[in-house]
């Protein structure tokens, strides 16, 4: 008989319960989800990524592994800066690409509009309550809503995620720190806040992902939120300790551009994102607002020192 739980001295259970759990255990053991996966495609894709690297092997590969890493935009719906989906990654035509040591940004071709999948038809509305038939960038400013007028923030596994779902998820998985002085207690690198922010914005909070152990210690990541209390708009910033694990890659359908901040290379993408690395830390700021100009973006980034 199998004993999943180690010594019975530790966990005592009655016979029936034990049998039930063993039954469940054998169901779980026999589940093979991989049968439905496309193993060959995963193999080819992985091989391609491994071989696809010239001289600077480790770096380029580690960048590629973080396709999911950056897909953020704050205060507007993120229409163009996106995680490259699996199949798309094999097919998408890369128009332009800029790489820093641990950061890679690609500009790819993407269609103007997207059809809404069957299962979501009739469930998504614009801000005035009109049903949306296809997605385009024109919804970027006002957002999309459910039938009850709740703002939609994401789609996950075919389901709609609303703002309140997101709040619940955040409370479960993130630790929030409001005190600026304490930020460095949780990270393995020195967190530097911008000295300059566009008018009206101020530090609101930091968030740390708790992980499955629920503990935040020597984190390689910190998420920072700056809020304009009058407009409710946010500036999002993430700082990462730079290494192979935290290196990231992102792609966008919009223009990308290399700029200098304090003499260091940085990448502006999507008109409102700026990414750079300095002294072993990766910085990513997202300032999407009509009121924030390009020079303001650079000025804010330059004040992180």
């Amino acid at each position: 008989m199998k004993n999943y739980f180690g010594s019975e001295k530790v966990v005592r259970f009655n016979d029936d319960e034990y049998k039930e759990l063993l039954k469940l255990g054998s169901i779980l053991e026999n589940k093979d989800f991989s049968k439905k996966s496309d193993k060959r495609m995963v193999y080819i894709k992985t091989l391609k990524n491994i071989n696809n690297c010239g001289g600077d092997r480790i770096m380029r590969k580690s960048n590629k592994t973080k396709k999911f890493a950056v897909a953020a935009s704050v205060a507007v719906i993120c229409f163009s800066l996106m995680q490259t989906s699996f199949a798309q990654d094999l097919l998408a035509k890369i128009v332009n690409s800029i790489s820093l040591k641990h950061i890679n940004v690609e500009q790819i071709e993407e269609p103007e509009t997207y059809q809404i999948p069957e299962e979501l038809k009739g469930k998504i509305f614009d801000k005035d309550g009109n049903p949306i038939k296809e997605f385009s960038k024109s919804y970027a400013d006002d957002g999309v809503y459910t039938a009850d007028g709740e703002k939609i923030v994401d789609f996950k596994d075919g389901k709609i995620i609303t703002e309140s779902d997101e709040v619940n998820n955040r409370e479960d998985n993130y630790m929030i720190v409001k005190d600026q002085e304490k930020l460095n207690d949780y990270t393995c690198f020195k967190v530097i806040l911008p000295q300059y922010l566009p008018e009206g914005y101020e530090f609101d909070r930091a968030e740390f992902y708790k992980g499955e152990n629920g503990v935040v210690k020597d984190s390689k990541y910190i998420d920072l939120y700056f809020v304009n209390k009058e407009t409710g708009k946010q500036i999002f910033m993430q700082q990462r300790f730079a290494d192979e694990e935290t290196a990231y890659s992102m792609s966008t359908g919009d223009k990308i551009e290399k700029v200098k901040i304090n003499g260091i290379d940085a990448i502006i993408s999507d008109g409102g994102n700026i990414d750079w690395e300095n002294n072993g830390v990766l910085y990513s700021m997202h300032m999407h607002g009509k009121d924030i100009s390009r020079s303001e973006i650079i000025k804010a980034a330059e004040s992180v020192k």
Partner: protein
Amino acid sequence: MQQSVLANTLNNREMKEKLCEERDFEYIFETYYKRVYNYIYYRINCKCSAEDLTSQVFEKVMIKIDTYSEKKSPFETWLFSIARNIVNDYFRSLKRHKFFSLDSIKELISKEKTPEEILEVSETNDKLLEALQGLNSKERNIIALKFGGSLKNKEIAEILNITETNVGVMLYRSMKKLRAEMERED
């Protein structure tokens, strides 16, 4: 002339190294694909993302294979530590596009056209998968390591840096909760 001979030798050596690497990769991939994929799927329950993350795990394994030391830990422990980090990072970044990216829609569209999509839908209705949603990430991870990754409690203990006894207790609680969730769904 001499130069081209030299270049040839270099090329050959590179070729050989490459071939060698490919064989290693194939072996590792074939041996662990099912377990890695199932581990990830237990945690995230989405075919598209599970495929992508599985690919990332093997990519990282191949990049870091030179740094792996038998003396420090068994290979499986090392491999699943990588898998665990990649899934954690995925969750971390998911939240970053909470203002919703069009990409999630794109994924839906690309899935919609395939026969797998139909399977996928029936799969999400699966009682077990529904019940898994009721667990927190810690509970789900331990179930995933145990039954997706087919790891021994001792190996799980090493990966999570807790005692073996603790793994047993956590596993017991998580399975009990999972069973309760499954009954609740009825």
